[in-house]
């Protein structure tokens, strides 16, 4: 053999020498292929990975291309620099009036997500039929065709057996293309079970503004015109929402306004505040009503909004009832009722005892806040509201805006501006009898039951109870789920007490997960479908608001495709519909054919056209000059796509005064709106409202159920065994829970105050740590009544004594190579949800994340 080798080397060397001497004169070789040809077609070039042609030329090579970031729910409009089809850097889209050319640190991590070698690259199927945390799924690659055929067969089986309600769609991060897969597909197949992640996100926060001013949504805050900004468990310089915008203008806000922040932990925003109020977790409601008490007793309410005593004499005297007849309200309702039932005794001294804050600070903050009226923001974050008894706290915090007239006002709290995107075609004509029957069944999350009112926008049983779906599935109550599709969610990591999800998902006989990265959730799937990355690879749009504007920002495929992925909300449902049609059920496919390109009137012929046409269809009013309704004007689709974002008209201040979407049309301090909603729920169950309050773990009885008020928090764990209250918070670098496989996440983790690079620390006040003999760097365990996690101790004065703060985001046991220390066995850091019990703010359906559990610290 060696001879052979030597001979070969010599041959080529000789050949080259000879031809060099004789140049072009050497005898042409024979064209016979000789004995060495072992593969067929030895004479013909046969390629399987490469092909003739030059690298597909992406329009905008070496250009800033428009994009949208969904790393958090700020939904900023971005631009990405693309060279040769590759994304290399990121900046804010200068055309957006919402994030005004700014982007935040997390947007850059999108690049590492995009080019993560651990991404899901091709469809895969499970080959180990056993499901469980300790069962390797043994996924193997399959074709799209095989994956889609399998899914279609499973759906057809449900249809054949008249049990389409046993189909379930779970939604995580979505764009507004969502209704195709979430609403239309689920309805036409015939299931009531489209379950959103929303209740893990913020619904209790929306409760506060809905039952005071009739607005179920995120607010925007006019910070540059504000003179006082009072934040409650919100950290806009780090997390949710409009982080880019607020980070950009915060310097101006700090210059013009006094900033106070209520938060047990020194957050990024707290480091820039004038007043830090490190409250005892869960007692925000006491502080809110004490501030309201001061505002009224000192006569600091904004009279053009609230009104005044007829004779101008302030009767709000501590401890004294007020005759309702003496006060003439203008745009608000029930201020005297609120005073009489809740506020009259809630002095700063009373609140100081409960909240652990200083009475003088409470008075000072309340007074300065009132003096800044109406340019005084009370900014409700998830902290005070996403608690078991957080619904009324949310109302109390938001109601302060009502007292100072900041609602809908300059320098105050605003809603979303009007935008003009359209709805997708109606599915009604395609919902057949089987589907109609299936749709009528109760939902798997058990919303609307006595203990789960979930009263979104005043309608009992209308809000999703995401985390409880796991219990519904496990207990088969109301029935079993047989076929489920989920996209861009990871409930087996992101939901409190995630082990319930492991159990629930193991129980579903056929689960498909559509995702960019296989996660803890995917571990239990039968089929995995690779998803496009929202920021670089997908057609879609989202809308958000800040700075007095709303924008609609586009997602577009702007990079050269790397792997064999398809888009969750459009392409994949189209392909499933196609397969269903081939099996004799073509309703969904015929429905999708109605999503015609508004420019040409043509129906889509394939999934790619469907993705684009449905986007053009939904946004036509924004880009088609013939349909113009307001805001930015474009010449046509190309013009809109090139710019990447549409901006609304400026905010119409005070337009809603007297026209709010409450029962009374006014800002309600006594919520007739909530009264009606609770009444409806009580009536549905044949009980009294007091019984509803009891079933939902609230202490309020009688009139208190309709009034913003303080309730003692419901915190799991006794103080003796669990001496500290757990404080969960979010990182500046969290792209939801999906940053853990990016090195930059760990490199820069110390930009979160108190945190450390390449570590996951629980922050403990030195006063608490020393008696336990714990030092910074010690490996520790946090143990709650429902679970435990491992992390590192960090002694830090930035947490209130008696609390332990830890950031959410790490602790993955299955999310790529870097995300776990030892894949499948040892997570990197700890997942906060492992210690957070599955508890709810039941009126909104929200999961409780804050002030919900006590923990103890164990040295490892």
């Amino acid at each position, binding site marked *: 053999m060696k001879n052979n080798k030597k001979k070969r080397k010599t041959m080529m060397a000789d*050949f080259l020498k000879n031809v060099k001497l004789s140049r072009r004169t*050497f005898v042409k070789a024979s064209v016979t292929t*000789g004995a060495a040809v072992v593969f067929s077609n030895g004479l013909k070039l046969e390629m399987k990975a*490469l092909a003739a042609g030059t690298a597909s030329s992406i329009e905008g090579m070496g250009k800033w291309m428009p994009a949208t970031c969904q790393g958090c729910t700020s939904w900023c409009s971005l631009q990405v620099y693309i*060279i040769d089809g590759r994304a290399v850097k990121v900046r804010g889209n200068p055309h957006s009036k919402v994030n005004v050319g700014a982007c935040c640190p997390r947007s850059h991590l999108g690049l590492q997500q995009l080019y*993560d070698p651990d991404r899901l690259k091709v469809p895969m199927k499970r080959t180990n039929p056993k499901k469980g945390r300790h069962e390797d799924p043994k996924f*193997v690659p399959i074709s799209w065709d095989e994956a889609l055929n399998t899914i279609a067969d499973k759906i057809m089986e449900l249809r054949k057996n008249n049990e389409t309600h046993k189909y379930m769609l779970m939604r995580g991060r979505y764009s507004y293309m969502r209704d195709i897969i979430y609403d239309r597909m689920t309805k036409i197949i015939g299931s009531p079970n489209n379950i959103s992640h929303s209740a893990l996100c913020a619904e209790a926060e929306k409760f506060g503004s809905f039952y005071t001013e009739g607005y179920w949504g995120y607010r925007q805050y006019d910070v540059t015109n504000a003179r006082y900004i009072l934040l409650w468990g919100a950290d806009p310089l780090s997390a949710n929402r409009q982080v880019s915008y607020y980070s950009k203008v915060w310097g101006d806000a700090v210059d013009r306004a006094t900033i106070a922040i209520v938060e047990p932990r020194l957050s990024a925003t707290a480091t820039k505040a004038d007043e830090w109020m490190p409250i005892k977790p869960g007692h925000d409601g006491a502080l809110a009503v004490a501030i309201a008490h001061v505002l009224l007793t000192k006569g600091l309410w904004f009279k053009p909004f609230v009104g005044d005593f007829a004779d101008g004499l302030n009767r709000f005297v501590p401890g004294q009832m007020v005759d309702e007849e003496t006060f003439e309200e203008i745009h608000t309702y029930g201020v005297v009722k609120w005073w009489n039932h809740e506020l009259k005794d809630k002095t700063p001294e009373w609140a100081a005892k409960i909240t652990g804050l200083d009475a003088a600070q409470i008075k000072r903050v309340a007074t300065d806040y009132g003096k800044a009226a109406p340019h005084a923001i009370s900014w409700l974050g998830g902290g005070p509201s996403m608690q078991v008894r957080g619904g009324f706290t949310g109302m109390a915090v938001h109601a302060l805006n009502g007292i100072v007239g900041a609602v809908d006002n300059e320098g105050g709290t605003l809603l979303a501006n009007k935008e003009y995107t359209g709805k997708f075609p109606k599915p009604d004509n395609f919902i057949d009898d089987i589907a109609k029957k299936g749709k009528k069944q109760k939902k798997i999350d058990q919303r609307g039951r006595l203990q789960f009112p979930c009263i979104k926008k005043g309608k009992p049983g209308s809000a999703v109870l995401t985390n409880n779906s796991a219990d519904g599935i496990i207990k088969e109550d109301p029935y079993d789920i047989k076929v489920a599709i989920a996209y861009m969610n990871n409930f087996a990591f992101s939901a409190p007490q995630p082990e319930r999800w492991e159990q629930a998902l193991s129980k579903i006989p056929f689960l498909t997960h559509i995702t960019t990265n*296989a996660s803890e959730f995917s571990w239990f799937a039968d089929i995995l479908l690779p998803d496009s990355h929202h920021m670089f690879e997908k057609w879609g749009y989202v809308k958000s608001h800040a700075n007095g504007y709303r924008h609609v920002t586009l997602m577009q495929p702007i990079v050269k495709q790397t792997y064999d992925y398809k888009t969750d909300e459009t392409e994949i449902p189209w392909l499933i519909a196609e397969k269903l049609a081939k099996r004799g059920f073509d309703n969904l496919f015929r429905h999708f054919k109605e999503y015609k390109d508004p420019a040409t009137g043509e129906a889509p012929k394939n999934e790619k056209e469907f993705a684009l046409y449905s986007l053009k269809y939904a946004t036509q009013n924004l880009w088609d000059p013939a349909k113009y309704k307001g805001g930015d004007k474009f010449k046509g689709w190309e013009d809109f796509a090139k710019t990447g974002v549409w901006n609304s008209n400026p905010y119409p201040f005070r337009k809603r005064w007297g026209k709010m979407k409450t029962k009374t049309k006014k800002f309600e301090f006594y919520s007739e709106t909530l009264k009606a909603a609770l009444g409806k729920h009580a009536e549905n169950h044949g009980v009294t409202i007091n019984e509803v309050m009891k079933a939902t773990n609230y202490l309020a009885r009688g009139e208190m159920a309709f009034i913003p008020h303080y309730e003692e928090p419901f915190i799991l764990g006794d103080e003796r065994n669990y001496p500290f209250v757990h404080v969960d918070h979010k990182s500046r670098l969290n792209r939801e829970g999906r940053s853990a496989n990016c090195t930059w996440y760990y490199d820069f983790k110390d930009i979160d105050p108190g945190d450390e690079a390449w570590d996951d620390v629980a922050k403990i006040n030195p006063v608490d740590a020393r008696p336990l003999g714990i030092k910074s760097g010690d490996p520790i365990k946090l143990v709650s009544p429902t679970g435990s996690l491992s992390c590192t101790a960090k002694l830090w004065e930035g947490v209130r004594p008696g609390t332990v703060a830890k950031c959410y985001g790490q602790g993955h046991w299955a999310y790529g190579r870097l995300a776990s220390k030892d894949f499948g066995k040892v997570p990197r850091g700890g997942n906060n949800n492992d210690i957070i019990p599955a508890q709810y703010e039941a009126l909104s359906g929200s999961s409780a994340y804050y002030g919900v559990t006590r923990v103890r610290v164990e040295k490892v």
Partner: protein
Amino acid sequence: MDVDKLLTQEFARRDAYKGLSDCYKLPEEELINTLEGLERVFETLGSEARSHIALVRSEIKGREDVDDLKVDYARLFVGPYNLLAPPYGSVYLEGERKVMGDSTMDIQKRYAEVGLTTAEFFKEIPDHIRAELEFMYFLIFKEIEAIQEGSFENVSGFLLKQRSFLQDHLAIWVKGLAQNIEVHSQKNFYRGVAMATRIFISEDFSEIAELDISEPTAAVSLG
């Protein structure tokens, strides 16, 4: 000199790259044919890689299917979780765990220089091991054409391209890939394939590195 004999060797080199490229596809029944062919070309070349291929071939010979290899294949080269042997050049060459790095762009440029790109149906990135092995197959294919056509400039040109490609890319990172496969493979199969790949490329590179190849006087014709 006997050009036919030289061609026999070059065909074998060419087919060795092609056969190896096919070994990194999702394993299907045709794999056994690929291994048979590979064994023969390694025989022709006198490569030390032959014995490794012979061993893995005997292991899967006579099987009805190769499905059990798929799980190992996925764990090593696809994921979806803890991708154990990322089949991408940039992961090894750039020291960061990412794809589409500068080295990937360089590969893309080299493909474009000879009128190639990754195929639409390939759905992978340009520096995937399959594409790089196939690129060598292509360059040798073109080199053989040049020999047959008597175009000296093109022979030198394609040999130089092979050398610089091996030197800057494949011959470097294939070692890291093979090491990952050897450490993490649960089956002997991929361990054998990895060893064969590493050995053959190292042999081929050392030979081509020693050749005295003149710069072509004109641009390589892609005819």
